[in-house]
């Protein structure tokens, strides 16, 4: 049996290797460093490449190069490091390179602290760097998903030729849970010869590029990218609901918050309040329709984040003028709300 008690951060690396990742380029930062530690340990052990880059900027650019040759590769960091990587992520989106990037969020702004926050939502989900692009964003909330969604991230990155994020908080990264690992996957990457530069005759006419001098040409490229994002919105929305069928209030959050909210739902139900949990798994594409459906059914939607309220903007956009009122409760600086605290906040809303 390949069940293991393992830190979320480490599960990302085992998942990546089982998904056929050939290279890891990274730079250490708390609370994401265990990802680099595990990569440094396991990648060379099975003949793959681990390299500690001179900077976050270089790490993502090394991925740009490796992805350009058609191999699966990844990097990982946390808030301040992700800010630095934005240059390379914009270029990767522009050049349509499949790269997996894990962001294990910590407190900000600036140096902030190393405790869990969810304040990178805007810089990750909204595009972060310059230009008209978005990245696909997956938000695991347990050890098993740290593995499973990493594997999925590689598939989606290849499918759409786009950078894909694993976005979670330091809590999920640092937590150990039992994870069941799959068999090593057989990945056929030969189709990448159509665009990758593999240093051979077959691919020498390929060009990886994000520069389009003519305005019309660049617009056309941008339109193509937008079509791709629309395609993702059509096909890749993922979410999980818990006891929402008869819910009179919907509570929502991602990462560690979704776990606390789930427990809060159980407590609330014991107290006679029919609460249900809506947890987005993809943050882009955002499950807009699902929120809209809930907003038409219930009077109140309660959103909790470890931030000043970033995802809640997407909920508001999704809901539009529907009848539900959107309530936000956020903790910052690394404070994770307790179940009792959320139960109290939600009860206040329901009791009016």
């Amino acid at each position, binding site marked *: 049996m390949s*069940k293991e008690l393992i830190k979320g951060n480490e599960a990302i690396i085992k998942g990546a290797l089982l998904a056929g990742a050939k290279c890891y380029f990274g730079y250490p930062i*708390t*609370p994401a460093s265990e990802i680099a530690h595990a990569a440094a340990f396991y990648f060379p052990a099975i003949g793959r490449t681990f390299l500690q880059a*001179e900077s976050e900027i270089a790490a993502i*650019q090394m991925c740009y190069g490796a992805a350009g040759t058609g191999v699966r590769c990844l990097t990982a960091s946390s808030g301040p490091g992700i800010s630095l990587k934005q240059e390379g992520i914009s270029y990767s989106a522009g050049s349509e390179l499949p790269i997996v990037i894990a962001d294990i969020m910590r407190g900000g702004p600036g140096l902030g602290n190393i405790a869990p926050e969810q304040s990178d939502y805007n810089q990750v989900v909204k595009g972060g760097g310059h230009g008209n692009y978005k990245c696909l964003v997956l938000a695991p909330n347990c050890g098993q998903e740290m593995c499973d969604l990493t594997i999925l991230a590689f598939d989606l990155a290849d499918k759409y030729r786009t950078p894909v994020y694993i976005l979670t908080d330091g809590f999920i990264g640092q937590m150990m849970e039992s994870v069941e690992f799959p068999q090593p996957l057989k990945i056929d990457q030969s189709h990448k010869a159509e665009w990758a530069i593999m240093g051979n005759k077959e691919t020498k006419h390929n060009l990886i590029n994000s520069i389009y001098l003519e305005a019309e040409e660049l617009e056309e490229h941008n339109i193509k990218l937008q079509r791709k994002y629309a395609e993702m919105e059509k096909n890749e929305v993922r979410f999980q609901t818990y006891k929402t069928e008869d819910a009179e209030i919907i509570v929502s959050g991602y990462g560690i918050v979704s776990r606390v909210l789930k427990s809060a739902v159980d407590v609330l139900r014991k107290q006679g309040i029919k609460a249900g949990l809506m947890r987005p798994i993809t943050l882009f594409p955002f499950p807009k329709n699902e929120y809209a459906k809930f907003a038409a059914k219930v009077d109140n939607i309660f959103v909790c984040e470890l931030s000043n309220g970033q995802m809640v903007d997407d909920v508001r956009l999704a809901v539009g003028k529907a009848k539900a009122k959107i309530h936000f409760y956020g903790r910052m600086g690394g404070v994770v709300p307790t*179940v009792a605290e959320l139960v109290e906040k939600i009860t206040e809303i329901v009791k009016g």
Partner: protein
Amino acid sequence: MAKDILRKPGGFMDTFVYKPGQDKGNTHYCPGCGHGILHKLIAEALVDLGVVDRTIMVSPVGCSVFVYYYFATGNIQVAHGRAPAVATGLKRSNPDSIVISYQGDGDLAAIGGNNILHAANRGENITVFFVNNAIYGMTGGQMAPTTLLGQKTMTSPYGRKIENEGYPMKVVELLSTLSAPAYLERTSLDDSKNIAKTRKAVRKAIQCQIDGKGFSLVEVLSMCPSQWKTTPVESKKWIKERMIPYYPLGVKKDVIEERAGYFPPKIDIDDESIKEMLGLKKEKLFRDRAMSDVPEKYRNPQIKIAGFGGQGVLLLGQTLAEAGMRHGWNVSWIPSYGPEMRGGTANCQVNISEGPIGSPVVDFPTILVALNKPSLDKFEETVQPGGVVFYNTSMIDRKPKRNDIEAIGLPFSDIADELGSLKFANMVVVGAVLEKTKLIDMDIVKDALKEVIHNKKFVETNIVAIDRGAKAV
């Protein structure tokens, strides 16, 4: 014969298909610019060395941003200054390719200074052609790190001054202080003799990579009549009279001959070995158990373990979680991490549950392990009514105050000391907790120990510690 000589080198594309506009036969460079000459030398070398098909050209930002218009190789266009990092990714992921980074002075020496320094210092087996024309060309004639003292540019309109901008940067000399680079030379394009030397250097640098000798870089002094506001003829004179005296030509480092070529081994590992290396094939003792077999008050425990850093608090929690998992239950373990850890106290929170675990945060434990007094003082109040506190009487001189909880005081540290080290206190606790709660079978926890204790020579003594703890209850 003459036809042959005048033909475009085979390293170039026949028609420059990526180049916009009508003219697909000529480069975009200004009259008198050095880039075209260097491009030609590289294109010829790639053919003569037989590596055109294997080559990947990295196009930078600057005038040579359009390197990809011309070379009949794999092409990748990259961010300003990042070419050495991208080249590293290309080469590491595909060591059979020949990776050439072509960069200007703003790109390489200013914004990408960190990247070139580290690629060189790692000894990346790539080749860099560094065009030094002492100015930003494409961006419109601004000052570069290599701009000469007194030289007027758009951003040094009164001339470069030592007091404001410092001295022009001598890149090859700088890199030559590093141990890793194999070959570093500065050449010039100002006359036919120097062009011939550049031709030789270009070939040597590429050959260096082909032979696996490591990092090679050729700095090429090159004309920029457009931004220097000179004629092509004057610009060659300017190199000779102004640049070469400050940037002396010649080989700055060459250890090619004394170095053995290195080619990273190709390792193909089968699935079973991958699983083995990832630790997914370990023999572990699993035995499903119903939570109903556990005395009711100890079922689905939410556990908090607290003590001084160094008392093995985190490992204690991991052992319980690992063992709980072996009974088929859901488990979670979270450390207190960050500043809290460094303050001398540590705690971790463990859930063991038959059903899915919602919040893994244990604010109100059903089992509290307090290994020192501050931990008991801090967490006693949070224990759920009916919960149980295990406290370390070796270090705590009071009993818990509450009467709605079960309190079990044992001299965990003293027992551990008898076993030879205070470090075993955590496993004495494990024995006591499991004996009292009957939560996990002893054979399971002992097998779990093998997984959580990395230094195998301590496993046996830890097993003894568990037994002693169990007996002490």
